[in-house]
């Protein structure tokens, strides 16, 4: 583990600092490596998407986004995220609280089970709901008799999305709350604060950024999920297509520019939320210093 940052330059700088940062050269090299990595792995695909999106010009771009099917897909995607994210946030808070504030048997198992949806192939995360609620599934006949549609309709899409984004908030909070320990809360309790108040006044301010991160990630993934949703959606145009599925359809129709245009919209949404978040963060840390 010790050799994790294997930068030889680092050793040369050993004698230098008396304060809490590295010499400029090391800093720039580290920044350089990090940016190069990010550039090759993340930025390039993004640039490709944007270049392709505008290949046919602005008019085509706008047209792709204002297509009624695209709007219907956008609406479904947002509705799905609006249901899945709050539910997973509540769950994430509860799970993180239980896991980091208490000691109990089977904690490792619980943490691992929470991680499990990450490890489940998206193909499978869709399939399991088909096995449960599909016409041939365990509850299928009952649902059909009562005229309830779950798979190939919005509920199925929401369920699959919830499954896929299930661990995000919890996963973000657990390590954070772990390092923070329980002292603050215990102090509050010993001063007479109770339950909900402890959480709101003591814990929440400490974890708010982690929580926000978690929600943003959860949201981004909820809007971008493809594999699982593709299995339960039924691909009915204008009805059960989410944005990612709409993108696939466009791509398969040789409408490359349009499909990348819609992808860039998803990308933009993600980058925008993150930018707003970091701006807020910056402003607040500045007002904090002042």
């Amino acid at each position: 583990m010790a050799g994790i940052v294997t930068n030889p330059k680092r050793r040369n700088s050993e004698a230098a600092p008396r304060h809490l940062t590295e010499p400029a050269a090391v800093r720039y090299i580290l920044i350089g490596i990090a940016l190069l990595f990010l550039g090759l792995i993340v930025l390039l695909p993004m640039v490709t998407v944007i270049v392709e999106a505008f290949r046919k010009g602005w008019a085509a771009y706008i047209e792709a986004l204002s297509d009624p099917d695209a709007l219907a897909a956008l609406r479904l995607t947002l509705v799905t995220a609006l249901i899945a994210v709050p539910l997973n946030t509540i769950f994430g808070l509860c799970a993180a609280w239980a896991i980091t504030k208490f000691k109990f048997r089977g904690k490792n198992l619980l943490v691992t089970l929470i991680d499990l949806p990450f490890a489940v192939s998206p193909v499978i995360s869709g399939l399991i709901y088909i096995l449960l609620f599909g016409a041939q599934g365990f509850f299928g006949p009952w649902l059909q008799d009562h005229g309830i549609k779950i798979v190939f309709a919005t509920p199925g899409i929401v369920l699959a999305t919830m499954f896929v984004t299930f661990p995000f908030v919890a996963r973000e909070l657990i390590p954070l709350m772990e390092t923070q320990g329980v002292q603050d809360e215990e102090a509050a309790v010993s001063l007479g604060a109770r339950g909900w108040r402890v959480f709101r006044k003591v814990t929440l301010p400490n974890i708010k950024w982690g929580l926000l991160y978690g929600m943003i990630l959860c949201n981004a993934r909820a809007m971008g999920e493809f594999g699982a949703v593709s299995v339960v959606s039924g691909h009915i145009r204008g009805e059960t297509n989410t944005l990612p599925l709409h993108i696939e359809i466009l791509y398969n129709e040789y409408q490359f520019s349009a499909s990348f245009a819609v992808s860039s919209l998803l990308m933009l949404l993600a980058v925008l939320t993150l930018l707003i978040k970091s701006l807020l963060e910056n402003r607040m840390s500045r007002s904090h210093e002042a």
Partner: protein
Amino acid sequence: MVLKRRNVFKSTALFVVIALLISVLSACGSGNNNGGNAASGSPSAASGGSSSPSGSPSADSSAKPVPKDVELLNVSYDPTRELYEEFNKSFAAYWKQETGGNVTIKPSHGGSGKQARSVIDGLEADVVTLALAYDIDEIATAGLLDADWQSQFEYNSTPYTSTIVFLVRKGNPKGIKDWGDLIKDGIQVITPNPKTSGGARWNYLAAWGYATKSLGYDDEQAKDFLKKLFKNVPVLDTGARGATTTFVEKGIGDVLLAWENEAYLALKEYGDKFEIVTPSISILAEPPVAVVDKVVDKKGTREVAEAYLKYLYSEEGQEIAAKNFYRPRLQSVADKYKDQFPALNLLTIDNDFGGWKAAHEKHFADGGTFDQIYTPGS
């Protein structure tokens, strides 16, 4: 300190509330847009005469709304998007003229096997129009339609056909003329995986047919032929469109084995960078259609569903199929488009391969000839 913390927290809360508001508003906004459009302009909706293709009878869009509005769900496979987009408009106009009712056809496209699975698992398709009879057989096995569904409509319930051709780069630099050229050294062949793509199964069987019929090989030799062919395959995409993209967009491979309609579509999209080579022998690909009995009886849409599929056999339907590069069944239309579809020696699945069930067992099931090609150590 406490005060500042509260400030920070307040702003965070504000941000979250604003973000939620924005998304709710945009959701509603797009919802309204969608609502408005669904009634008038969505491509699949019965939108009246003005937007329907020239070949179809014109309908009066200002006619009084007739109470009998129906919705059909057509679950189809990937390459038929363009075909059904045009056909649905035409049928909606026809149906309005015939009965005065509005019909909206919702399309759903995807890999043929996956689509069949969705229908089995409860996707309420009124009609299915898939790549292989085998996939519809599976739906029949699940009890959603009769086992003899293929006798419900003419020509084995396949209103249009296609075949497998080669798409090569302009000028055919590698001189690929026939199946035999595909196993030569230095030729890269692009085909999707027969295990995951319906189209690729037709590719595979066509190559098998060449080996057994044209070369007179027995099964072992034919398997060897296909093994050599697949040695020349650098990428096995999961679907037909994926393979086309690999060949066309990424510039990989010397020849693409493709549905004839896919090849023509690629020519249409990419113009003069490619050309089509028709091999000496190929297979008659029959993408069948069927009404899903259980669904139409439940929804009460049998009449319109059957009319929808019958309309595929009509002059207009056949014309649209031919325009979208499917070989029409109707002689008059076939004559009109005979330059587009050169005659070639076509094998059929029933006569030459003993039907889909037998072909599937022999070639594509676990341990079949395709699996044997990819056995380790061979």
